[in-house]
């Protein structure tokens, strides 16, 4: 279980939004800034954060939609960042993605059978004669009826489309699937169906997930470890039980407390954060959370805390825990 599948080291992605007349950048959006963590084979790693925290950007770097500004990505021990486009494409087969919006992630001009068959055909994974059989098998895996494979996406509901998206990702037998908020656009009763499906598929195919979500309650169900991001930085990583039982970073505490409890008799004391997430274009110096933090120390505004292990496997980036090792 402890074999590392994907290891990210000091990963960063900066978007240049404006340049001056000499071509020097004047506004840089640091979507992902110096993030390091690793995903173990067979686990589901939950990545949580609010909009603009860089979680989706990080996911897109892993599937090669963006190339990182700096940092290294080791996949099964191999550095992906030094490969050229053609060599990198060979790894498509191993890292796939499931998208948030089931209405935008399927080509409306292709039948769902063709959508699922496409990754097999372009990567030449099976002889032509076996493609159709495989498509039926995949439809079966995700709980769709085989006779529907000649239909177009607009004839399906959101939940069914999400299943097609999952089948497409499964078609190449990937090792890692980046799930970018796969249930947040779905109705409550359908969310549970899709989450359970992802659970079953993980067991059946031995998949590893990077599960991106904005709420801590959804990832709680599916993930083994959880990382919390805020403004491009990873602020806390811990095994699931540890994180939910003993959240250390003030932001994690606030996120947990913001989740409405499905029990009106048990109204809890709630931490309500003041203000909004600052713009990632001009993040606060020092700790990025200090403008909203309710436990702010003097040094928080001055220097950024580093991610350090404060308990076994529990990492947190906060000055409340230990001194900064420079």
């Amino acid at each position: 279980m402890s074999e590392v599948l994907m290891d990210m080291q000091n990963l960063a992605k900066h978007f240049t939004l404006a340049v001056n007349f000499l071509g020097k950048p004047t506004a840089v959006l640091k979507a992902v800034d110096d993030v390091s963590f690793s995903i173990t084979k067979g686990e589901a790693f939950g990545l949580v954060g609010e909009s603009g925290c860089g979680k989706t950007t990080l996911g897109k770097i892993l599937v090669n939609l963006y190339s990182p500004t700096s940092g290294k990505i080791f996949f099964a021990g191999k550095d992906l960042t030094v490969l050229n486009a053609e060599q990198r494409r060979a790894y498509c087969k191993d890292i796939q993605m499931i998208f948030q919006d089931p209405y935008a992630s399927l080509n409306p001009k292709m039948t769902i059978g063709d959508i699922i068959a496409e990754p097999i055909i372009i990567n030449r994974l099976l002889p032509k004669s076996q493609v159709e059989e495989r498509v039926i098998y995949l439809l079966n895996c995700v709980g769709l009826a085989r006779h529907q494979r000649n239909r177009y996406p607009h004839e399906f509901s959101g939940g069914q489309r999400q299943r097609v998206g999952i089948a497409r990702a499964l078609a190449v037998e990937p090792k890692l699937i980046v799930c970018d908020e796969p249930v947040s656009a779905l109705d409550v009763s359908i969310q549970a169906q899709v989450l359970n499906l992802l659970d079953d598929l993980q067991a059946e195919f031995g998949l590893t997930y990077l599960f991106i979500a904005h709420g801590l309650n959804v990832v709680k169900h599916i993930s083994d470890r959880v990382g919390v991001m805020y403004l491009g930085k990873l602020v806390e990583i811990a095994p699931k039980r540890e994180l939910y039982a003993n959240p250390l970073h003030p932001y994690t505490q606030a996120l947990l407390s913001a989740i409405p409890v499905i029990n009106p008799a048990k109204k809890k004391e709630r931490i309500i954060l003041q203000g909004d997430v600052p713009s990632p274009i001009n993040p606060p110096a020092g700790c990025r959370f200090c403008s909203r933090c309710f436990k702010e120390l003097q040094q928080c505004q001055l220097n950024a805390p580093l991610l350090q292990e404060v308990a076994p496997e529990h990492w947190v980036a906060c000055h409340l825990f230990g001194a900064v090792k420079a």
Partner: protein
Amino acid sequence: MLLEVKGLSTEFKLKRGIVKAVDNISFTIDKGEILAIVGESGSGKSVTSLSIMGLLQKPGRIAGGEILFKTQDLNKLSQKELQKIRGNKISMIFQEPMTSLNPVWRIKTQIMESIRTHLQVSQHEALERTIAMLDTVGIPSAAQRANDYPHQMSGGMRQRVMTAMALACEPELLIADEPTTALDVTIQAQILELLYRMREKFHMAVLLITHDLGVVSEAADRVIVMYCGKIMEEADVRTLFSTPLHPYTVGLLQSIPQLDADSDERLYMIKGMVPNPLNMPPGCPFSDRCDHSMQRCSQEMPQLQDIAGHKVRCFLYEGGVRVK
């Protein structure tokens, strides 16, 4: 009693047939009460709010029923008379605050305009009131931010502005249609807290439309669960969450991943999906997804019955007791 909806039905006439988006629903809202209507997409919850506001777009139309605001039937008023009530006695906030604010005007201009169309006040008074209102909804340095344009504000700030605008004329009823759906969790908590505070302050009633049972549990006094245009269950919030009766409500509650539950079990799932509105089963609309479905469920429609103030539409509770 502030608002009483009696037998409201709203239809959409499409080429392929008539969709009954809202089918004969009745409910009331008292002064100062927060009533939540919860349902999934296609349940008719938003159409209900649009019907009350008289904002239905073609091909939708109210096919029957009364919407009594105090004693006035809103359905019988002309658009002009409705205009007077809308934004004044009844206001609305929407899911996507950006599309409801005009991008070319400063926010103070928009709020002042809404004040001055309904109240006889001077320009100066309207401005004062605007700034006071922005301050109340928690916008820091309100006098300066009042000069901003909508795009200069974040999503949470815009929703506050929308709320300020809606509350500027001190309405008696606020209809909030998915007010927090487009917002982040930490911002959602802020807005819900704001709604609660405003209710205390202005003593208005709120009709909260949402798909999120968490939001309902946090904010509402009473809950209506809608499914396929029908009311399936209605109860005060504590009763509904502690003893839900309808299998649909029970299923919904169980299928939400909860923080305090042991998370390694499988989630409960409601099987299947919402039936096609053009091809509704003759009986209970939930019958083909229900774990307790009986033969008669798919043949006849159960009535909404009142069991000591807890209303439920299900054959399991005929005669006021649960039949097994």
